[in-house]
């Protein structure tokens, strides 16, 4: 297994104490022959532990693909993905599943919850799948933080979109994973619910040191993060620390223009 120190690192500009995940020259293509799409074309990125990282870029730039690669949801064609000290490309399908279950959390844009389970059961899902019980104190704290106390026995169909996404955040955090991946978690929410959700994510990093990677195309959402990684055409092209909506917008405008998008 390759160690973290073996490869040089072009874009890891800031000297972070620990790196939670790393993508090294990752290439991922879809389709064959003429129809080939290089969704990731030599992407390099380092995700610092205990920070909230936003991934930005125009539609189709490979944001989701990058997150899927980092989370072991998808196999890559070449390059390397390291999670802590684990090389994902060396893992079997089953081991990747178990790694996701035990060490990662997910929040998707929509359809985050199992309709048949209550909010509480959905939150506990990664643990119950592993045959474990959630830590009651941690669960209570999460529920209180997310304001879900009155909704625990409701099913997803009885919850608003914002509440559903908060349950998903609870589920992502319940097992205290190494990293939480969120792919446009506010994409389907109104601005108020979206802002609340983003605050929860930021608080999780501030209060518990939770590492979070969030894909978004909204500069305001990105401004909640500690740093922003910019993607274009399957490559990481820029980074920004301590973003504000204005600085993010300035960078994206700059990125978008040459593409004409």
């Amino acid at each position, binding site marked *: 297994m390759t160690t973290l120190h073996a490869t040089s690192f072009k874009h890891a500009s800031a000297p972070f104490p620990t790196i939670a995940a790393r993508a090294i020259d990752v290439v991922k293509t879809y389709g064959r022959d003429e129809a080939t799409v290089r969704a990731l074309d030599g992407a390099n990125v380092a995700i610092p532990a205990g920070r909230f990282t936003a991934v930005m870029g125009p539609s189709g730039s490979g944001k989701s693909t990058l997150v*899927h690669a980092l989370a072991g*949801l998808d196999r890559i064609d070449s390059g390397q993905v390291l999670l802590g000290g684990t090389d994902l490309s060396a893992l079997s399908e*089953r081991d990747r599943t178990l790694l*996701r279950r*035990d060490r990662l959390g*997910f929040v998707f844009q929509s359809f985050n919850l199992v309709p048949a389970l209550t909010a509480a059961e959905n939150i506990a899902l990664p643990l119950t799948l592993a045959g474990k019980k959630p830590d009651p104190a941690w669960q209570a704290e999460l529920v209180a933080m997310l304001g879900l106390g009155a909704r625990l026995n409701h099913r997803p169909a009885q919850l608003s979109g914002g509440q559903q996404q908060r349950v998903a955040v609870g589920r992502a955090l319940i097992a205290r994973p190494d990293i939480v991946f969120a792919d446009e978690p506010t994409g389907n929410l109104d601005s108020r619910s979206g802002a609340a959700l983003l605050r929860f994510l930021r608080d999780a990093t501030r209060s518990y040191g939770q590492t979070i990677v969030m894909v978004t195309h909204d500069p305001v959402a990105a401004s909640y993060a500690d740093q922003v990684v910019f993607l274009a055409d399957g490559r990481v092209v820029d980074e920004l620390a301590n973003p504000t909506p204005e600085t993010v917008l300035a960078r994206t405008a700059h990125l978008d223009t040459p593409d004409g998008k």
Partner: protein
Amino acid sequence: MWRLTLSNAIAHRSRLALTWVAVALGVAFVVGGLVLTDTSSRVLDDQFRTAAAGVDLTIRSSAGFDSAMGVEVQRDPLPATLTDRIAGTAGVAKVRAVAGGSAQLQVRGKTVTPKGPTLLGTWAGSPFTAYTLRAGHAPTGADEVVLDVATAKAEHVTLGDRITVSATASRTLRVVGLTQIGDADGLPNSNVLLTDLHTAQLLLGLGTGLTSIEAIAADDVNVPDLRTRLAATLGITYAVTSGQDAAAASADAAKQSISYLRIVLLALAGAGLVVGAFLIANTFGIVLTQRSRELALLRAAGATGRQVLTSVLGEALLVGLTGAAGGTAVGVGAAYGLRGLAKSAGLALPGGALTVTGRTLLVGLIAGTLLTVLAAVGPARRAARVAPVQAMRASDPAPATTKRGRLITGLVLFAIAVALMVVAATTGSMPGVGAAAALLLGAVVVLGPVLAPRLARSVGRPLNRLGVPGQLAREATVRNPRRTASTAMALALALALITFVAVIGSSVKAIAAAGGEAITADLMVQSSREEMLGGLSPEVGQRVANLPQVADTSTTRYGHWLDQGTTSALTAVDPNTLPKVAKVTMTDGTLTALQDGGVVIADSVAKERGLAVGDTLAMTFPRDGQQQLRVVGVMDDRSAQAMSTNYVLSLGTYATHYSENVDATVYVALKDGVDGKQARVALRAAVADFPNAAIRDQGEAAAGRAAATEQVISLITVLLGFAVLIALLGITNTLALSIVERTREIGLLRAVGMTRAQLRRMVGAEAVLVAAIAAVAGVALGLVLAAGTLAGLAADNPVVIRVPAVQLIAVVATAVLAGLAAGLVPARRAAKLDVLTAIATQ
């Protein structure tokens, strides 16, 4: 719209594939049954017709009817002199004297027992018969016999071998020839033995008597005219029939066992189709739910509800028509399989090229198409109600909630069904029981969606031990009550039928055994064949009676009679000796009164027909036609069961109405202190030269009676297995479809860490749960139906219900295991889903 229908059906072909299979299977069953029975009757017709190919007229003694229960009645012998009288009649060119009847065949000391009769006849070649020697020569001497090729093959008999033929007398004969019959090797289910006239007369104990005379008319003579003239000269003692009519009557007799098979096959095919209908309705329901967004879009684009309805029904028509066509083709092939099945259940059917009539094809096509379209009407109407605004809604359609109205309607139906069942069962009205059963089924169908979630919760409790996969499996069945209900209902129906048959079967056996309790005889000597296929020579009874160990004997005989056109059976007894071997309880009149003629009837018959001692009963006998018999006694029903029939005559009365001279059973009471085993050995030795005389004690006799029931039950159960198969396909189909529907949920579960093994377990658990619900509901339903039927049949008698617990547990276990198997494919498919595509699916 039709273009849309067609492209829809093609686009959803994988979803409709199993529906198609279900239609095809059901239709194949129907077509297979029809083809098989058509083929059998045609082959029988052909054979009997060619067997009597050249005969214009057949002269026999008159009879009240030709055949009963698949066996031709025996007629009085004709005097030999009649041959000359007929030969001398103007217009008759040729005559031949025939002696024929039932016999027993022994090869190398072992009795050959075909399912049908062993026929002993008089050899003749062309132009009288269609027997054609394949090897050897015609029988000429007193020790020569010709055997049909099929029997020779089956029993490994070759020219020159010695075989023993027994009828009234027994002889060892040398096989000098092998014959084919028509184009075939032999007659189905039968052995054919042909000797010269004298040997046949000797074996059949006819003396110089004949069983029939066959005549060929001169070339220039009109056969119907000749028949009229002959009938006039011979008088009413003799019947003159055309050769073809006589052959047709013989064929009809042979066809009776097939007509029973046809009813069984078609009834079971019907069950298969009904089970298939549930599956079809379910598939269309699911596919349309999944397409509700698309349908709403259509509506929004201006399609009327009616157009949507037509489009969906058009799709059903397409599936139905092609499925029925496929099933019809498969069914023709399935006829071979069914023939093999029937054979393994002891019911051999004639072989030969299959007969596929236009009627069969039409029935198959129409039944399959109609069924599919009818089953799709419900889902189609629901689809037509999809509102255009649903196209705009982003969320998945909420699962249908069960309505209060359904619960109330279901419960009311259920109450009516139960009330009707109780009334019908106590009054013994079978149509009432049938109507109640249909109502009950209706109630269960209506209540299904209400009951299914409840059942799923309780039956599925053990699944919680599987953790999240088990819990999710249970929730999936609970959340979709209508779907779970109709999937389970199909299997439940099939299992209910199996339970019903099993309970009826074991109860019937118990009733038969109870009848035996009224018999006090120590031993009985019975024909090892069915009574009507050649019983015991009267000699057997005499020899047994003369043994020193034997205190008393009493013989019985069976006969068929026509009861206002339908065949019924009666028992002839010796009223003086019967009480020494059986306890016959009379509720009115006396048994001994039978000595002066008349009939004793069972209590249930007396009640049903309002008959009492002193009344008369019209009975049509084979020998002397319709007679009025005085009712001289009424026996209780248990005694009637012991006698095997509801009508009892004296042996003396029997002799005047029947020509048969064979005994059914010789009951034996041993002297006090005689050892049963030794007595048995003595009996065996005394009747050693009667191969068909089987010596049985009470237990063996009961087992013998049970064996036949068992064979029929196992055949029906195997055939019902096909209905179960269709229902299991339904589980597979429903699960496969619901996995398509739950793709995103599955993707999510996999993303957050559900392993493939856990996912497989989840889908498998769902399949098992549906099967388990079906098993519980099916067995319960089957038990209720069986109880109602048995109670209805028993009427005033104590109801005997035997629940074969072990068998039913095996049925439930098999169903659950089969459920597991049904879930395998969908489980594998679910596990194979790519996590990312699953997440990305809209």
